[in-house]
């Protein structure tokens, strides 16, 4: 199942035209470049080819090589070049071809992109959008499927955004390009071909989604918090959970930074139970932060510990094993079942820690 605005709106009139998420991003780039002559797009293979996912298809044709150009194959160079271009007055929208290929640029991102405004007391701001196709589920080989959002969310000065719907892909990217601060825009690869309508989003004149999580489905028993590619999984699990009599609410964060504590906490206060779902490895991941924030703010509303359904703490597996790594509907349902609906302690997956050993250790 893929989320569409038609589902959300329940329209009965003539169905609005459907576009893919990659098409929505392409349209957002087109519209942003039409609206502002300082918006430029560059990266590896983005011009003539239109990007390996064709997200930038036709941009250089329509806006010329001055505004959409291919660069040498060097990610630190691309990001550093964008820093300089932004200092000269441009609003660069740059592409890292794949999640793991952005790592060479990490110093530029963490030491310069994230800090320039701060270290210059606000005199030099960097309105840069770094687009990163991320996550797995497409049968990609190693280094092509990482979920790298925690690295960026941990770095003060970066906004971190990831759309879960086609409409949000358009809206959030337009807002990211308008933002005066650098934005890491993480595009869930496996949703590139999902479909939805962007008609109302394109008609909007202002965008106001940053820091505002969306309640994708209302429920009363459990809150599933998810973002990007995991929202779809959470929605499927929520549907399936009705068979067990659970009414599940799904919160789509949309932006990890800024984080919408208000919407998440309001939902958990209502439901009393919370599961965080994400594809990235769980250890020290964004889900840990969310679980901490929820219990810091809604402890007395919780009937059970906040659980996480995350990727395994392993390097991203080869394609034929990725289904075991990725959070799926069954694993989410299992987590929901473990939310202490009765007084029986659930110790199935706890490490066997000796009570007398200060070292502990799994057996």
């Amino acid at each position, binding site marked *: 199942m893929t989320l569409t605005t038609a589902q959300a709106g329940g329209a009965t009139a003539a169905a609005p035209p459907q576009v893919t998420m990659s098409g929505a991003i392409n349209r957002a780039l087109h519209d942003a470049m039409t609206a502002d002559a300082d918006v430029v797009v560059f990266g590896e293979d983005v011009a*003539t080819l239109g990007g390996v996912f064709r997200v930038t298809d036709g941009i250089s044709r329509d806006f010329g090589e*001055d505004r959409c150009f291919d*660069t*040498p194959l*060097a990610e*630190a*160079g691309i990001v*550093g*070049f*964008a*820093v*300089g*271009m*932004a*200092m*000269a*007055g*441009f609003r660069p929208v740059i592409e890292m071809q794949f999640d793991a290929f952005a790592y*060479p640029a990490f*110093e*530029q991102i963490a*030491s*310069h992109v994230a*800090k*320039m*405004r*701060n*270290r*210059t*007391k*606000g*005199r*030099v*701001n960097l309105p840069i959008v770094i687009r990163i196709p991320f996550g797995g589920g497409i049968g990609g080989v190693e280094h092509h499927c990482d979920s790298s959002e925690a690295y960026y969310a941990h770095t*003060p*000065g970066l*906004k971190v955004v990831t759309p879960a719907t086609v409409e949000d892909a358009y809206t959030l990217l337009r807002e990211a390009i308008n*933002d*005066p*601060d650098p934005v890491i825009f993480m595009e869930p690869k496996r949703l590139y071909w999902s479909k939805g309508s962007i008609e109302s989003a394109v008609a909007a004149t202002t965008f106001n989604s940053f*820091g505002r999580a969306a309640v994708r489905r209302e429920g009363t028993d459990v809150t599933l918090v998810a973002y990007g590619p995991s929202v779809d999984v959470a929605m499927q699990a929520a549907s399936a959970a009705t068979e067990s009599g659970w009414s599940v609410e799904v919160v789509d964060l949309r932006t990890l*930074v*800024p*984080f919408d*504590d*208000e919407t998440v906490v309001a939902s958990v206060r209502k439901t009393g139970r919370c599961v965080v779902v994400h594809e990235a490895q769980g250890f020290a991941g964004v889900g840990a932060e969310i679980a901490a924030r929820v219990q810091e703010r809604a402890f007395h509303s919780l009937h059970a510990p906040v659980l996480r359904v995350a990727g395994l703490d392993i390097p991203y597996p080869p394609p034929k094993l990725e289904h075991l790594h990725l959070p799926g509907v069954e694993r989410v349902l299992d987590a929901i079942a473990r939310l202490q609906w009765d007084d029986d302690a659930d110790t199935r997956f706890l490490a066997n820690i000796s009570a007398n050993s200060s070292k502990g250790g799994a057996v």
Partner: protein
Amino acid sequence: MTTETSNPLPQTVPTDRPFARGLMPAPMPVQFLDAAGHRVGVFNDDYPEPSSEQLVAAYSAMVVGRRFDIQAAALAKQGRLAVYPPSHGQEACQIGSMLALSEDDWAFPTYRDSMALVTRGIDPVQILTVPHGAAHCGFDPRASRTAPQSTPLATQLIHAVGFASGEKRKGRPTVAMAFVGDGATSEGDFHEALNFAAVFKAPVVFLIQNNRYAISTPLSKQTAAPSLGYKGIGYGIASEQVDGNDAMAVLAVLNKAVAHARSGQGPVLVEAHTYRLDGHTNADDPTRYRDSDEVDDWLRRDPIARLETWLRHEGLIDDAFVASVAQKAEAFAADLRMRMSVDLPVDPMSLFNNVFATPTPQLLEQRAMVQAELEAEEASR
């Protein structure tokens, strides 16, 4: 769409002379003045001699720059600064680079280029806010057309390239002067910056101040290249090497390099051979990695004495002028001493002001917490 099928392999070596000798640097560093300050001609045919006015200005700026450097090092020894990376001995490079630029050009310096920033006209107190501990960058980069001094080495070179390329795209004739030392030529960003600059024909001048040491690591452990000036060739960048303690040669080469970049012919790489007479910082002990004989050798190639000798010989300066410059330098240092004797004001709430254009709700919470802590501290006094 372009189809690149012709000339699968390069057939000939380029024979045009985009700079001095095609892309090649001179086989020996370009020199106008020998170590004693006598006029010589070492591979300098391609470079017009700098004007008398520029040379006299360079002399004055070197004297003031050196006095600033000595003063800042003293402030560090006295504990007024947490640290100071001196550049004593590199005056010709730092002053020459700035005097070769026009007012609207930009500089992308490292932490060691403080003398260059003084020459640029930036308030020395603002330059020293970083080691003073008051701010990450004390000056306004836009007002002074100077990027913050970069500590992650070579990372700012690619900013210079993007900036210069952006200025060119905006139709502005700006040149960017990008600073790097010998050690940082080993960093990946150095190579990415050169490549991007060449591909996009960015109006950038890369100035390598080869001062022979990266903290303690000598050039011989940094590179096997015959000269760092050769590192531009592989990227298609016109390159040169120059005696970095000969202010006349530095100015001559950089004047031409800046003009070359401004004319749209692309970037230039210049290696200036010089020497860091002091330690890496006041915390360094250079006697652990080099002999005093070597330092004495380089003291005999003092850039200020060389230029002074020649300017006096030409009758362009006299005792009275030299005395007046020395006096100006002393006044500059005295003013700096006085202003650095008081703590610079810091605002605790400034911690939160510029993380984002608009603080996140989480930052507002943390600001409220720190504010409450400070108020409680104030109340308990």
